[in-house]
């Protein structure tokens, strides 16, 4: 069964050249290097196709193609001249440097391709650019020179790596690792993962590498002659099938693929939350982040929780909405900012806020609306008069600390209701309704606002509709294909499913308001956060309470324009944020009146925060913020203690188990209950002892053979002594114990005698006549058996080294192998089942084929 015909190893392998120096044969260096270079180039280029989507467009592909082809051809050329493998790799690196210089630094180098000092300066600039891009932008990033340079360099290195694995090291199958390294990038960054195109081209390239090493390799080492092995196809199919099934099952079983660390639709971003060029897209990702990344802290004198606003979105055309920077209108410097429209409200509230962005990285600055001045920024920043969004021109929001002075009009229902003047002084793009509005959006807007006459009434009707019981807050829908779309079609889906998150609620309200003639835009930023308990002292304001927000608080809300009052935020998203008093329904207007003492437009929607007499601003209540603290401080200690205890137990468990087993066996012997039962126990103990000290019993071994092997093994025998009985394995065992008793040998003879006695007792018990028929036969008395075991153990310990002793004590192989066999059991069952299924399938196929042939013949 298992005895298979060994291939004639000696005859097939002639002294061939080692791979990598294919030069000894006539055509040793002939076509092979070129074919392999082509295969490597094809595979790496194929893998790089998957980068589309990480980098925008295809403009980057040409430099990548040039780099890859030049590097692989250089190495093939060197190989044709039979260069050493190391020299080939060095040549590849040199050619990579030259082609990169030629592509990116032609003007800064000597003769267009030789690097000079200027080249390195330019390189530094490019690398800085690339790192900024990586930090600040989200995929797909614009293929600027820095990023493309890094991409080309990385792919060139991958070419050298793949080539080195496939040729000099002779491990073509392993070269897939290099290709995998390329695929990891899109898999982590692109929302739709690698994509079929990238995967297919990579797989094809990999197969080309494998095929070329099989067919063209001039040596026999990679050109295995196993095609005639009949079981090969079946084995390959079995392996592949098992791998596939395990892959598919594993992601169902292992948590973290659709929740936890990698929730579906989100991608790993090792550089923190970069809101990037299109915050709308990354917003959903931020919300689904389980951990609070991108933490921002701020301290404010505002009596109510504050929304931090980064950017606005105002153009609702097209499939993907994104902020319009209006670079032409931007003004530099943030010392004084002015929205430009007159505010007719009788009173304005001024707020001072100190913001610390920490590692939140974005080109846009989160500030409370409406900022009048921002001080303390580093770098150059500009602001847009139309939206008051602040954007860095050469910097981003990372590690900024700044003081914002903002003002909002005190809004009341009456004021808003009275604002019926026609809109003036607002740019056209905030007013124009989007084209191609789906019917459902239009009809919904009309039916919702049918009974309302004023703009404010219409806005309230829309908000009431969206906050109504029909809508639910959900982060999972209407996400499609892992992509949090925000176009009008997604909006239609949202209105159909009545389920989505803030971006959908906000855009629905903004679009519907525009359809009803109210200027609108979507603000993106953060909902009010939690109080940290700390205070920050601000010059002229004293100690201000500190708040924190992180990625989980990312939010979007609509802003509607009312003539004379400016841009007014609303809150259509249920269960998030705070509904301003002016935007609350008339039924809740009682609450509004009580809160007017605050002289503030914004009131927590949550009644728990109502006590207005409290001097401190009411934070958003967070469950268990105060009393749980003590418990929180104690809990880590407890967890740590429990963890340490668990670790100690885990480390000691093999030892404890082994001791338990030994005690049970020897105690079972000592009580002298049934002598019949003892021998197997003592024998098992002897076997386990031997296992622990490196003499493993073999299942096909007879007790006597095992005993002889143990007696003869260096684990039990003194090295200086002649073999007392190991060689005489089938001979009479009793004789071996009475070996020469001189000097150190006495001790040894004792142990040998002990092993022999135990073996004989076991044999007699196991194979001898049952006790009933032969009462005189009883073997060892219990005490002797225990004593023998002790002697053997002592001898084993004495002969073992320190490492061996430690291993036998702490990681006894007898226990570990037992656990291992238990752990392997399901795999064994699976494997056997798979083999059986495979056999049945092949038999069925053979029978079917035979039947078909017979049918055709007859």
């Amino acid at each position, binding site marked *: 069964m298992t*005895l298979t015909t060994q291939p004639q190893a000696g005859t097939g392998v002639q002294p061939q050249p080692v791979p990598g120096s294919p030069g000894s044969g006539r055509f040793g260096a002939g076509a092979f290097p070129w074919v392999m270079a082509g295969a490597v180039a094809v595979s790496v280029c194929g893998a790089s196709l998957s980068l589309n989507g990480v980098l925008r467009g295809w403009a980057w592909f040409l430099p990548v193609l040039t780099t890859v082809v030049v590097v692989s051809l250089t190495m093939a050329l060197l190989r044709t001249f039979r260069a050493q493998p190391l020299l080939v790799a060095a040549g590849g690196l040199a050619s990579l440097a030259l082609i990169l210089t030629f592509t990116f630094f032609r003007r800064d180098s000597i003769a267009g391709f030789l690097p000079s000092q200027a080249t390195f300066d330019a390189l530094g600039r490019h690398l800085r650019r690339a790192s900024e891009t990586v930090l600040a932008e989200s995929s797909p990033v614009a293929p600027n020179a820095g990023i493309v340079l890094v991409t080309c360099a990385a792919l060139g290195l991958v070419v050298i790596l793949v080539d080195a694995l496939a040729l000099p090291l002779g491990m073509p199958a392993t070269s897939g690792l290099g290709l995998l390294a390329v695929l990891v990038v899109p898999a982590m960054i692109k929302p739709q993962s690698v994509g079929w195109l990238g995967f297919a081209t990579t797989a094809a390239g990999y197969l080309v590498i494998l095929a070329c090493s099989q067919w063209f390799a001039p040596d026999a080492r990679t050109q295995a002659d196993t095609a005639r092995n009949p079981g090969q196809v079946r084995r390959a199919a079995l392996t592949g099938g098992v791998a596939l099934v395990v892959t598919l099952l594993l992601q169902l079983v292992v948590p973290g693929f659709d929740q936890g660390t990698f929730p579906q639709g989100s991608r790993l971003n090792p550089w923190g939350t970069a809101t990037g060029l299109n915050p709308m897209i990354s917003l959903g990702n931020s919300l689904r982040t389980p951990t609070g990344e991108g933490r921002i802290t701020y301290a404010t004198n505002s009596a109510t929780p504050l929304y931090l606003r980064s950017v606005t979105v105002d153009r609702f055309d097209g499939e993907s909405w994104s902020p319009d920077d209006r670079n032409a209108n931007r003004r530099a410097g943030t010392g004084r900012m002015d929205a430009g429209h007159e505010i007719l409200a009788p009173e304005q509230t001024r707020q001072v806020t100190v913001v610390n962005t920490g590692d939140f990285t974005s080109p846009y600055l989160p500030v409370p609306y409406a900022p009048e001045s921002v001080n303390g920024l580093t770098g150059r920043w500009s602001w847009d008069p139309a939206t008051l969004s602040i954007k860095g021109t050469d910097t981003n929001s990372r590690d900024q600390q700044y003081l914002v002075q903002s003002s909002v009009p005190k809004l009341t229902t009456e004021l808003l209701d009275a604002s019926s003047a026609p809109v003036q002084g607002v740019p056209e793009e905030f007013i124009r309704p989007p084209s191609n509005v789906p019917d459902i959006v239009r009809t919904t807007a009309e039916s919702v606002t049918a009974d309302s006459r004023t703009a404010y009434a219409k806005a309230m009707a829309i908000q009431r509709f969206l906050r109504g019981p029909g809508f639910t807050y959900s982060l999972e829908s209407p996400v499609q294909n892992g992509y949090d779309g925000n176009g009008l079609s997604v909006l239609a889906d949202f209105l159909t499913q009545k389920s989505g998150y803030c971006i959908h609620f906000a855009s629905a309200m903004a679009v519907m308001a525009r359809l009803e003639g109210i200027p609108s835009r979507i603000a993106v930023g953060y909902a009010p956060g939690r109080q940290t308990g700390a205070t920050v002292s601000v010059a002229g304001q004293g100690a201000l309470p500190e708040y924190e927000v992180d990625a989980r608080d990312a939010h979007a809300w609509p802003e509607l324009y009312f003539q004379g009052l400016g841009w007014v935020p609303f809150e259509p998203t249920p269960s998030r944020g705070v509904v301003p008093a002016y935007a609350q329904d008339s039924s809740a207007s009682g609450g509004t009146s009580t809160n007017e003492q605050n002289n503030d437009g914004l009131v927590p929607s949550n009644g728990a925060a109502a006590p207005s007499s409290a001097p401190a601003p009411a934070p958003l209540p967070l469950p268990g913020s105060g009393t749980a603290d003590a418990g929180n401080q104690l809990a880590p200690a407890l967890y740590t203690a429990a963890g340490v205890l668990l670790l100690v137990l885990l480390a000691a468990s093999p030892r404890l188990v082994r001791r338990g087993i030994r005690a*049970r066996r020897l105690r079972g012997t000592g009580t002298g209950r049934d002598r019949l*039962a003892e021998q197997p126990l003592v024998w098992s103990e002897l076997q386990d002892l031997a296992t622990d000290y490196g003499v493993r019993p073999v299942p096909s071994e*007879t007790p*006597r053979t095992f005993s002889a092997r143990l007696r003869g093994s260096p684990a039990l025998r003194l090295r200086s002594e002649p073999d007392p009985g190991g060689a005489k394995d089938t001979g009479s065992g009793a004789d071996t114990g009475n070996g020469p008793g001189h000097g150190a040998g006495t001790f040894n003879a004792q142990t040998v005698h002990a092993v022999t006695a135990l073996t004989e007792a076991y044999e007699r018990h196991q194979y001898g006549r049952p006790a009933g028929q032969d009462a005189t036969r009883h073997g060892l008395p219990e005490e002797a058996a225990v004593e023998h075991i002790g002697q053997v153990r002592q001898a084993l310990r004495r002969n073992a080294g320190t490492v061996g002793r430690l291993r036998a004590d702490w990681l006894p192989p007898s226990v570990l192998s037992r656990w291992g066999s238990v752990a392997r059991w399901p795999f064994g069952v699976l494997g056997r089942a798979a083999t059986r299924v495979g056999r049945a399938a092949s038999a069925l196929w053979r029978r079917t084929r035979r039947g078909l042939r017979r049918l055709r013949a007859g």
Partner: protein
Amino acid sequence: MEPHRRITIDEALPGGQGFTGSTARGVNSFNGHKSAPLEAPAFRAASERILSAINTVIDGKAEAAKLALTVLLAQGHLLLEDVPGVGKTLLAKTLARTIDCSVSRIQFTPDLLPSDVTGVSIYNQSSRQFEFRPGAVFANIVIGDEINRASAKTQSALLECMEEHQVTVDGHSYKLGEPFMVVATQNPIEMEGTYPLPEAQRDRFMARISMGYPDKDSEIEMLETHQATSPLARVKAVVTAADVAAMIATVQQVFVSEAVKEYTVAVGRATRDSAMLRLGASPRSLLQLLRAAKATAALDGRDFVLPDDVVAVAEAVLAHRIILDRKAASSGETPQALIRGVLARIPVSREMTEKANSGRTAPELRPSR
């Protein structure tokens, strides 16, 4: 070799008694009754006497000698197969001579007739009756030289004798003596004009031994001692036939445990399941394997069989009965290696050990906790 005188009775029948002709029944047997088994020391002394006597004649072949004695005590038949001149016939003759019993030697040739082996009825003028003249097979130890040179008919005449320990001529059955053992030799090299033993007949031999060449020292010693005289002349019988019968009775009383039976069956089944074998071990071969193991155990001074005993004789007992697959044979596999492979794969009474561990002791241990 000896073209004319094909059958020679080397030794006179014990006690000088010849066939009395008219009553062939019970001839040369130990009076039909069972011998009493020997005590262990006596058995040991007898077996050691036999083995040392053989070893004085044949140098460096202690293993083969012991196996031959094992087969004798297990009431089996022995097939010695090797190239000419390594002492096959010498071993057979020495074994026969150490025992005080009747020995006959048959030189098999193509024209040997079945009646030459079994015996024939001859008309006695004086008594006017047909008288049975027993053939060469009527002896305690029958040495069949070059058995594959005889025709199939003659070979199969030996079959009945070997299996049933009796001869049937003219409707009469004649019991053969006890102990009865056929030691056949066969030359595997010169196969021209021979009739190879069919499988059925090979199956009746308990064991096949290949003698092999002696090692260097033994060969030098052999050259010295065998110069002048045949060492066979010095050999004296060291046990009587009755002693051997008693030893056989002892062997029969050796205890075989369930575990060993299971192990034996597992080995047999493994040969049948092997993809490299066209024919695996037959049930009869397993029976003989166990009998040989019992004899081995007895020779080792035990009254119960160990798996080691089975392992010790498995190759000799099984190798000549199994037939290799054509593909395996062409790839250089040998039956001996295959048997060794099977033995290296079959676990030795793993189930029994576990049963003993879990089934018997666990319930008893529970109260003590």
